[in-house]
């Protein structure tokens, strides 16, 4: 199998699930399954928008590294990670992970691996804005933060 070069993008614009999926299967006959996960901005509790900040440079590097690791761990024929930054409205997609493989298990497992990692290892920060005005930074979930607690700067 040829080495796979993952497609990694951090962008303000929305993404096109159908186009990104087609990119992983068009013109080739070795793809048996494509798994995807789209993280969507919820709008409950009066949320009017999410504003996502990232660390230009480090974020792209971190995403590229983890996508390459997924390609090394599973026999993927393609891998796409697109994470939006900036202002995102309820119902809009925040993040897209796509993995393609000859075999369904490889696609499904690597997709779950990537989205789990994105929650704990990628330098993104979410701020919630509310319809009544005001905003607050989203706090890391205890479960997610446990994975990064070893990096905390004080005891």
């Amino acid at each position, binding site marked *: 199998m040829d080495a796979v070069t993952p497609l990694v993008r951090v962008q303000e614009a929305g993404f096109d699930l159908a186009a990104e999926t087609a990119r992983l299967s068009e013109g080739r006959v070795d793809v048996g399954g494509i798994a995807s996960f789209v*993280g969507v901005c919820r709008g409950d509790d009066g949320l009017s928008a999410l504003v*996502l*900040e*990232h*660390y230009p*440079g*480090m974020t792209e*590097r971190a995403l590229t590294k983890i996508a390459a690791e997924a390609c090394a761990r599973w026999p993927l024929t393609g891998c796409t990670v697109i*994470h939006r930054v900036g202002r995102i409205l309820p119902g809009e997609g*925040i*993040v897209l992970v796509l993995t393609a493989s000859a075999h369904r298990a490889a696609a499904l497992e690597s997709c779950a691996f990537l*989205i789990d990692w*994105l*929650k*704990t*290892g*990628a*330098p*993104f*920060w*979410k*701020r919630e804005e509310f319809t009544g005005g005001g905003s607050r*930074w*989203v*706090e*890391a979930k205890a479960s*997610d*933060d446990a994975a*990064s607690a*070893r*990096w*905390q*700067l*004080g*005891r």
Partner: protein
Amino acid sequence: MKILYFAWVRQRIGLAEEEVSPPAEVRDVAGLVAWLATRGPGHATAFADPRQVRAAVNQDFAPPDAPVAPGDEVAFFPPVTGG
């Protein structure tokens, strides 16, 4: 040394980045935090509870004892919440 701040660390300090020249006795991330916290009330607030802050040195996550040196890019931010 180039220092970057993100999310509420940036907001509390009031800067997205700054160039600093810490004294020679600042040799690791923890030492840099202690020194930066003395630069003003915003800095002091941002670093009041270092357990809430994470760091990266040259774009890799870094623990408190990670060395820092002139020329490094060091970033401070809250635990990440992407995905």
